């Protein structure tokens, strides 16, 4: 019997842990998720055994295990990798009315192999003293001469950059995407480096005026216990640029049923649980992610941004253009 770091709470109103177990392969590793597992175990009595991987390692391990894999549920915080898992046959489609009802079609794999459980916007942090929000209401603006030497970005192999580029390729075509990438390279205030938080800090420090970042790092800093972090957000704000006027780019954390799941029933209960109001609420509160379901309650700071439209990119496109995205980055000289 596998041992696990069972985070089951010993609260009195929990169901006794008699519901068997569930094996989870996840590329997420947040405190929010721990809370969700605990809540799930409490609600169902099913123990959650998990291994946290990085996405490529998770896929490689599934590949190596083949039909012997003990994995029941696969969770990855990147739609590209999730699509890859689906394409490799590591996930199986399953019908579930509850999930279909809760998660809008836009955030579900057309073949039903996986669905989104939380969303993160890849948008722009800007210096409120030097940039007006209208100046960055389209991703294309970042490549304009207006921001020559003023843009901070991560390296090209950061997954969120890869999915953003995949979206742009899908929407704009390869040629325009390449030109955009070249424009960004020309505008870079420094060589791509550091994490998203580092980009935001660089804006605050005046090294650049705009930076591409995921939204929740900004929110995390804004609500941090650390005064220095909060100070960073004083003169920085988030802008939600559009692709073709249709909305901003969001990446998805996805979940799916493993192809050889030994605990299929439990797995489906878990997948349903992830889309339930409690789990969705935890994603929003703990990680500042946007829910994929409509009825979730969000804390105020997340809710404040939740009205921004999402670019209606078909889910398969995230994985489809990944290799090309890397090529374009390389061609443009985006390290």
């Amino acid at each position, binding site marked *: 019997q*596998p*041992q696990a*770091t069972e985070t089951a709470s010993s609260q009195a109103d929990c169901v006794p842990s008699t519901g068997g177990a569930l094996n989870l392969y996840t590329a997420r590793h947040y405190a929010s998720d721990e809370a969700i597992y605990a809540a799930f175990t409490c609600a169902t009595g099913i123990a959650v055994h*998990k291994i946290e991987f*990085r996405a490529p390692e998770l896929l490689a391990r599934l590949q190596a295990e083949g039909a012997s894999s003990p994995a029941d549920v696969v969770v990855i915080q990147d739609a590209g990798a999730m699509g890859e898992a689906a394409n490799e046959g590591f996930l199986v489609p399953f019908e579930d009315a509850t999930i279909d009802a809760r998660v809008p079609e836009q955030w579900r794999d057309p073949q039903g192999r996986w669905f989104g459980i939380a969303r993160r916007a890849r948008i722009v942090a800007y210096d409120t003293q030097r940039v007006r929000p209208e100046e960055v209401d389209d991703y294309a603006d970042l490549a304009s001469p207006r921001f020559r030497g003023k843009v901070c970005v991560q390296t090209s*192999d950061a997954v969120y950059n890869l999915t953003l580029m995949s979206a742009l390729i899908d929407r704009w075509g390869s040629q325009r995407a390449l030109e955009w990438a070249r424009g960004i390279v020309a505008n870079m205030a420094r060589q791509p480096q550091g994490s998203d938080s580092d980009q935001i800090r660089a804006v605050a420090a005046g090294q650049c005026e705009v930076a591409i970042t995921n939204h929740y790092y900004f929110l995390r800093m804004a609500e941090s216990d650390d005064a220095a972090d909060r100070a960073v957000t004083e003169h920085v704000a988030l802008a939600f640029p559009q692709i073709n006027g249709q909305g901003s780019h969001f990446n998805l954390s996805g979940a799916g049923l493993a192809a050889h799941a030994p605990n299929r029933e439990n797995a489906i209960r878990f997948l349903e649980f992830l889309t339930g109001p409690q789990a969705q609420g935890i994603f929003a509160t703990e990680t500042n992610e946007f829910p994929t379901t409509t009825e979730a309650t969000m804390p105020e700071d997340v809710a404040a941004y939740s009205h921004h439209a999402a670019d209606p990119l078909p889910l398969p496109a995230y994985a489809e253009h990944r290799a090309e995205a890397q090529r374009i980055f*390389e061609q443009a000289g985006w390290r």
Partner: protein
Amino acid sequence: MSYRLTPLRIGAILAALIAVVPLVAVLVTAAGQPGDTLTAETFWRYTRTSVALVLLVGGGTACLGGIAAWLVALHDFPGRRLFSWALVLPMAAPAFVVAYGYASLFDVAGPIRTAWRTAFGWDPPLEMRSLWGAALVMTLAFYPYVYLTLRAALISQSSSLAEAARTLGLNQRQTFMRVILPLARPALAAGMALAAMETLADYGATSYLTVQTLTTGVVRAWSVFYSAAEAARLALPLLATAAVLLWIERAGRPATSETGQARWRELPRIRLKGGWGWAATLYCLILIGLGLILPLGWLASLGWRADNELPRLIEAGRNVLIVGAVAAAFTGGLATLVALGTRQGRFLPRLLSLGYATPGAVMAIGLLAPAGIIWRAFPSTVSSFLMAITLLILAYASRLMAAALEPIDAGLQRVGRSVSAAARTLGETEAGVARRVELPIASGALFTAVLLVFIDVLKELPATMILRPFGFDTLAVMADYYAKDERLGEAAWPSILIVLIAIPAVIWLTRRVSHSRPGDRT
């Protein structure tokens, strides 16, 4: 002794297989179907960066570690005895941990550059996320390799050559330049080769510092293009380089003393007077400060403010202590078998050492393939905790065999051929001699090997990540996750714990090195 397959030799072959399988798997994978991969241009850019980084780190470690060894071995100054082992302490800090510290300390929004901007109104060019910054960080993390090997060479150099030079009319300085240093050059090269190997194999620090090397290429091929075959192919030049570096390292090992009967006598130490003495003290302090105290201290100050998941930390610490201890003992045992069984041939140990110099990502590919075969053959074992831990320990053994083989081999070499032969003629079998004579005599070396493996398991990431069972974290894994999630404060806790656990082991190892030289008197 007869050529028959004795039990000892069969054991050696089995043990060696464990270490060789992943390497073979990498080669087999590399022969797989080509997939999407990097453009040639990108490949060359990575290559150039790798070469530049290796040269910088090689040169940097040679300078910093070389000067430290020169000061400590040949001079007397305040604190020399303390520094002689304290200078090795930065080895306890994994390079990725040092990288966390420096990147955040010298970030554009970090305390130093912010303070500077406030004071002077301009941003100082102190970018750690650059080739130069990475070179600095890795130099600080790896200089102990040069320090250790060079110091060992200097303190085991008999003074007679230096004295011969003096009586031939050279003064102290000329003697150092023309005799002592040239004689220690192989050791210097060996230390640099070790540092270079670590640099090439590193991914944690380089990726955190955004320096794109061949290892980045390997990881990209795998994680962006999902092509294990391409990743393995990209790793081949790295393996080849590692093989060359290993060869340099082996060749640089001091030959057994050629001095024979002459009484061994250490090189005289020059007493540094007044200001010079304090300058030497300051140099050593700065080195330890920059290599350990500054990055760790900064991380600690971040960690202090951050939350920590204490129960998870404790459990991860407990995990790594237990698994590390078991893996270290097991690897030590395997390496002992190999060392006992291959004393005639030198080829096998060299081959086995390659696993040590292989980048983690590549090793992960090499480990998964054989693990996959086992999993598919025995499906029921995949989710078994014991099976997973067993695989993990086997993986550690194959990855870290070289680290253990090295000292054990050296220890067994010191058991004179005649001592073993004497035991044979006194009625013991080959295995009995190993048990009753050779291993007890080499027990110090065995312990050294076990400690080395233990320290490496503490820092190990790729094999742990990919093979661990459900619910199993180690400190390195936790540090990596927090850092990936941009929570450096939280990452500080496991990082510091790694260092704290490793420090006693490092101290013990260093002391042992200074006790293993001829005619020790320190």
